């Protein structure tokens, strides 16, 4: 079965892919923070950020269509904000455009982060940055079992479709859905039990061991320095 992997392009070999996970997390998140906190409404600054994002997307070798397509997911939310805007006292088209650009760029940058870093590395990066262990562990299991669960659901749906003709009345449909959900919960529960037994069988004693392959190098330093320079100078420019 085919899945739409969140980190489908994470195993390419581009200048961005070789960076350490921590570098990318810190770099991209501060870019996003800078974008959102930028004072005033400065089109030149926004243009510069858009330009930088475009360069990063180009350097990442991730297909442009993938990034743009995914970024558009944010559009409905932006439009919603646009619809609400006339009720606030200072609405104008330019303001809306600035808002839309900022949101779109932020999502693009986030996508860049997840599609140039394999999810396991991202987790390791977060952990080294001090994110709670229990959260990392849960995200790790989620990533590992999301697809197993999806397949389970697909199989259950196929089994259901094989045994019925056409649609049943809504009440029956709902009941069917309910029992499917119930059995999915039970199956997951039992799977968790077996997983835990497998963990115990290999000596699990409450601590999840980790090894770290990628190291922080001069490349990471250059990347972070570049981003810091961009942020500081754009703030100075915008604050003038």
């Amino acid at each position, binding site marked *: 079965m085919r*899945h739409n*992997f969140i980190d489908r392009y994470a*195993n390419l070999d581009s200048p961005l892919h070789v960076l350490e996970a921590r570098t990318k997390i810190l770099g991209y998140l501060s870019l996003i923070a800078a974008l959102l906190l930028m004072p005033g409404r400065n089109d030149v600054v926004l243009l510069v950020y858009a330009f930088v994002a475009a360069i990063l997307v180009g350097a990442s070798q991730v297909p442009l269509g993938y990034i743009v397509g995914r970024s558009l997911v944010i559009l409905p939310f932006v439009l919603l904000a646009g619809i609400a805007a006339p009720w606030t006292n200072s609405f104008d088209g330019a303001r809306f455009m600035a808002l839309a650009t900022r949101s779109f760029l932020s999502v693009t940058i986030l996508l860049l982060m997840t599609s140039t870093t*394999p*999810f*396991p590395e991202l*987790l390791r990066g977060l952990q080294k940055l001090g994110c709670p262990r229990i959260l990392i562990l849960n995200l*790790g*299991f989620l*990533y*590992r*079992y999301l*697809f*197993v669960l999806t397949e389970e659901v697909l199989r259950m749906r196929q089994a259901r479709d094989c045994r019925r003709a056409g649609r049943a009345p809504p009440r029956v449909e709902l009941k069917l859905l309910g029992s499917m959900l119930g059995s999915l919960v039970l199956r997951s529960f039992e*799977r968790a039990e*077996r*997983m835990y*037994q*497998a*963990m*115990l*069988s*290999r*000596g*699990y*004693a409450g*601590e999840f*061991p*980790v*090894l770290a392959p990628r190291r922080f190098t001069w490349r990471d330093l250059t990347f972070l320095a570049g981003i810091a320079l961009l942020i500081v100078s754009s703030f100075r420019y915008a604050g003038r």
Partner: protein
Amino acid sequence: MTEYAIRITRLSYSYPDGTKALEDVDLDERVALVGPSGAGKSTLLLHLNGVLSGKGMIRVMGKPLGDTALREIRRHVGLVFQNPDDQLFCPTVFEDVAFGPLNLSISPQEIPHRVERALRDVGLDQSIRNRPSHHLSHGERKRVALASVLIMEPDILALDEPSSNLDPRNRRHFIELVASLPSTLVLATHDLGMVMALCPRTALMDRGKIWADGETRRILADARLMEEHGLEVP
């Protein structure tokens, strides 16, 4: 009295919902545990490394199970689960294979070499190590599951339905692979062809009891016995 790798006496276990399983049996060399589904094979395997503990006595490598630290037992007895998706729970293959040795506090410098060797031993390419297990085929996942246990260098290898869901070619490869391993083997299955290829001795298990125990050829040829317990002569 000879010392068996595993000696089980009057073992009984009841699941929280009341189902009973298990019985007397000695396991050594290469033994197959055959029987219909629900016979208690998997339950028995889970007892061998102390994940489940019922009433009765289990001796592993001559020592009663309760006496040795569980961690030690789990090093001696490597258990490979039927479904690799249950066994492989880490984000990448490397982490999964390294999970056991890291828990055994083997020095981190040594781990990559060990992982490399374990993957080679099960016939997998090294390029697989950084991939998430859900990107692998079922056959590959089965091999990774085996590697994740072999890396702990167990004296006793307990395999639960290792050939289930494998296509004929993968099944044959898997059998050849297991045949080439030096460890004591306990094989729970109803794949009787595999039993004949791997195990000189067979114990027939049904409804928690061992009904027959002896030379594989003799047991698998006994049509009445086999049919009585939901199996058939291969």
